[in-house]
């Protein structure tokens, strides 16, 4: 930290306004970033952070406003112009070619060649030099589809560096990372600024801002609220500046009153994509009126467990009972009909049809039912009315049920999914990483909604990589390790270290 040079302004954005139709996504925003600084952008979902950096990267063309790079005014027509001025961007959703290797992805579009023949050897050498210089360890010959999300992100960062980026934009880089990967990324960011790179980072996690950023610009509903020196403010200051009210990080809830068993999993075995056992003899029970949280390090069978519970993936053996009925082997429709709803972990892959409007996405599980359709004909007024109600209730922004889901900000996409699943009024709600990419205000809302489900006598299964969230929201915590529940503790007064030890495969004392 503190590598920045107050005399050199790397990026200056002046009076940026971006309108989409009648919606003002950015409203006269100023942003000043010094060379060598880590500058965080903070704001609620849909505040306009991604839009602002997209303008800087030439993806959007602001309705008005000017951009200066190292003091020179630049019209960012296309990303190529931005790249030419030393700007690189790692998007909220990665843009890598899966079957290609790491090096192939990095050099794509800027291949080194000898007499028209791709010079792979030299390219690999150059990439490895960069990787060593900034501590971005990678395996150059691995295929993208075989490496972890954290590794893919390093590839994205290297890709920008390979194109000569001096100013890096990272849009929610930590939303998809595991806690360990986040620590690694912070180290990498520090290496980058040590060597004079400038970083603009978007994150909803206040702790990360405190950890890496020098300055933070807060945006609320498209308007800039303030730019603050991070060292001078606390996390709760940041939160209230961003939301405009006090935010509580604790979840208030009564003691749970568990009732009958809703979900019972016995000795479940599931294989992963590579045909290797991922869930190996897992058993658990969730009762009415309680939240069971599953804590664990990513890749210990959580995904396969959820896939099997939702009917996406076949289980090898075992038993899954919902209200006493075996649902193993049913397709997703059959499982939905047993009053099981799921908030999936990947909102763009499983959660939404991005081309569809909010309203169309809201009815995807119920479009065949009245009043949404009659005799095969969709009833649009009823669909829109229902969607409008949910959009209001869950504070989706903009509050327009005809809005195309793909144009929503990441966090608002998540809200649409949550609204849909909770309003299904299920007996069992499975929530997988339900607050990924949400701002602190929205997180508070979702946590309250989960507790409200519990209080209505529903069973909730919460699967999250964030231990804080699991401890805060759950009533009981099961720790998953290598496809099994290796220990269970009461959430009230749970000891983080003890759980952490179990997550790492230590004995369950």
């Amino acid at each position, binding site marked *: 930290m503190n590598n920045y040079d107050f005399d050199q302004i790397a990026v200056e954005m002046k009076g940026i306004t971006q309108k989409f139709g009648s919606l003002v996504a950015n409203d006269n925003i100023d942003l000043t970033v010094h060379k060598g600084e880590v500058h965080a952008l903070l704001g609620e979902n849909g505040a306009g952070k991604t839009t602002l950096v997209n303008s800087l990267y030439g993806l*959007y*063309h602001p*309705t008005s406003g000017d951009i200066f790079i190292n003091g020179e005014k630049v019209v960012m*027509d296309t990303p190529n112009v931005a790249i030419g001025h030393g700007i690189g961007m790692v998007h909220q959703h990665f843009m890598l070619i899966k079957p290609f290797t790491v090096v192939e992805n990095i050099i794509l579009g800027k291949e080194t060649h000898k007499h028209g023949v791709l010079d792979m050897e030299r390219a690999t050498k150059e990439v490895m030099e960069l990787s060593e210089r900034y501590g971005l360890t990678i395996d150059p010959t691995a295929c993208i589809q075989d490496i972890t999300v954290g590794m893919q992100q390093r590839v994205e960062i290297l890709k920008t560096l390979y194109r000569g980026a001096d100013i890096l934009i990272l849009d929610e880089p930590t939303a998809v990372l595991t806690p360990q990967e986040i620590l690694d990324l912070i180290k990498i960011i520090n290496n980058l600024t040590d060597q004079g790179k400038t970083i603009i980072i978007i994150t909803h996690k206040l702790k990360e801002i405190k950890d890496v950023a020098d300055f933070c610009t807060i945006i609320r509903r498209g308007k800039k609220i303030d730019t603050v020196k991070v060292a001078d403010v606390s996390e709760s200051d940041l939160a209230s500046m961003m939301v405009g009210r006090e935010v509580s990080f604790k979840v208030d809830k009564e003691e749970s009153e568990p009732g009958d068993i809703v979900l019972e999993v016995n000795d479940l075995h599931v294989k992963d994509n590579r045909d290797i056992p991922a869930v190996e003899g897992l058993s658990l029970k969730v009762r009415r009126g309680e939240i069971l949280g599953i804590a664990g390090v990513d890749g210990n069978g959580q995904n396969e467990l959820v896939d099997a519970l*939702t009917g*996406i993936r076949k289980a090898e053996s075992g038993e899954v009972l919902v209200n006493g009925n075996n649902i193993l082997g049913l*397709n*997703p*429709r059959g499982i*939905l009909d047993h009053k099981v709803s*799921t908030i*999936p972990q990947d909102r763009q*892959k*499983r*959660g*939404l*049809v*991005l*081309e*569809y409007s909010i309203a*169309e996405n809201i009815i*995807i*599980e119920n*479009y*065949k039912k009245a009043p949404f*359709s009659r005799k*095969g*004909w*969709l009833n649009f007024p009823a669909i829109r009315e229902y969607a409008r109600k949910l959009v209001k209730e869950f504070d989706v922004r903009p509050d327009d049920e005809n809005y195309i889901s793909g144009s929503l900000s990441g966090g608002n996409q998540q809200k649409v999914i949550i609204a849909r699943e909770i309003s299904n009024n299920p007996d069992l709600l499975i929530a997988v990483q339900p607050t990924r990419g949400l701002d602190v205000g929205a997180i508070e809302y979702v946590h309250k909604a989960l507790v409200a489900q519990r209080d209505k006598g529903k069973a909730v299964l919460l699967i999250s990589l964030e231990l804080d969230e699991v401890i805060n929201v759950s009533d009981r915590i099961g720790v998953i390790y290598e496809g099994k529940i290796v220990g269970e503790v009461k959430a009230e007064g749970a000891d983080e270290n003890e759980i952490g030890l179990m997550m790492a495969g230590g004995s369950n004392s």
Partner: protein
Amino acid sequence: MKNPLKNSALGITLISILLGLFVGALILLFIGYNPIEAYSVMLNGIFGSVRYLSWTIIYATPIILTGLSVAFAFKTGLFNIGAEGQYIVGALTAALVGYYVPMPTLLHIPFVLICSITAGSLWGSIAGYLKARFGVNEVISTIMLNWIALYLNNFFVLNEKIKRPGSEATNKILDSAKIIFFDVWKKSPDGQAFRKAHPFFNDIFRTPANAGFLIAILAAVLVLLILNKTTLGYSLKAVGFNKDAAEFGGINIKSSMISSMAIAGGLSGLAGAVQVTGFTREASALAAMEGYGFEGISVALIGANNPIGCVLAGLFYGALKYGGSKIQPRIGAPYEIISIIMGTIVLFIAMPKLIRMMKITKKKEAE
């Protein structure tokens, strides 16, 4: 400043068409013909008389339907290269049912159409089933099914019991199965007298003007309704856009693939039926693919996979085909120029980025 990347698909289509005609003109010039002369012959050949217009519509009808077939499949995430084969099966069915199953007209026409639609549907759903059950890519399976359809057609048509003596085709369908307007009456003395008195209608009756175009428009409206207003269209499109999310939402993606290919196949089968009952009146042995299905791919592309767009694109293509057929006899320029023009248009439409880039540079020059 307006976002130049947001140029409408319609704009790109129109520019592509102009570019295609321009490239066609360049080539004509290059091989020694006057492009202005060629194009005016074509234009005159399309709009010069009511008869020409009627022919244009007749040419357009089957490719509007195959275009709808390709577009429908595409909207649901499938690439139906098999419109050709589905067309062949539909045409063969129409020729056989139209001849061997005598009925009163009011019943016969719908019966023939339904049989052809069913045949095309079945043919299409084979590819859908192979994809759903075994993961066979529909591009590959439909190409193979095209050839199977072709040989199946020849097998039936050339069968001694079916073949019309002295020909390589089936017997002509019965009058009751024809959708040609007033086909019997217009040749009767009454009809002849009427035609003498009304040159306008005479002009039309000199062509096999038929109800096919109306059927095609009806089909386009139906496709539009299915896609936008029904639960079926909702689920099929969801699978087309994002099958993972559709599956998660409880939509059966396997049966969706089969339904989608069945509907697409039915549309192509209908194209075959309309062509036989409205124009050829027979199914003939095929030495090679006739191309109605493949032309449907171009129509769908130019029509931006929109049903109304397909009708317009089909008319455009039909006009080029018919008007273009006149440049060879008149000025000797090769008919193949039409294929080159169409190919170029499709190429440009498939490269919207190129056109957008050209627009951006133009804008900059203007500034």
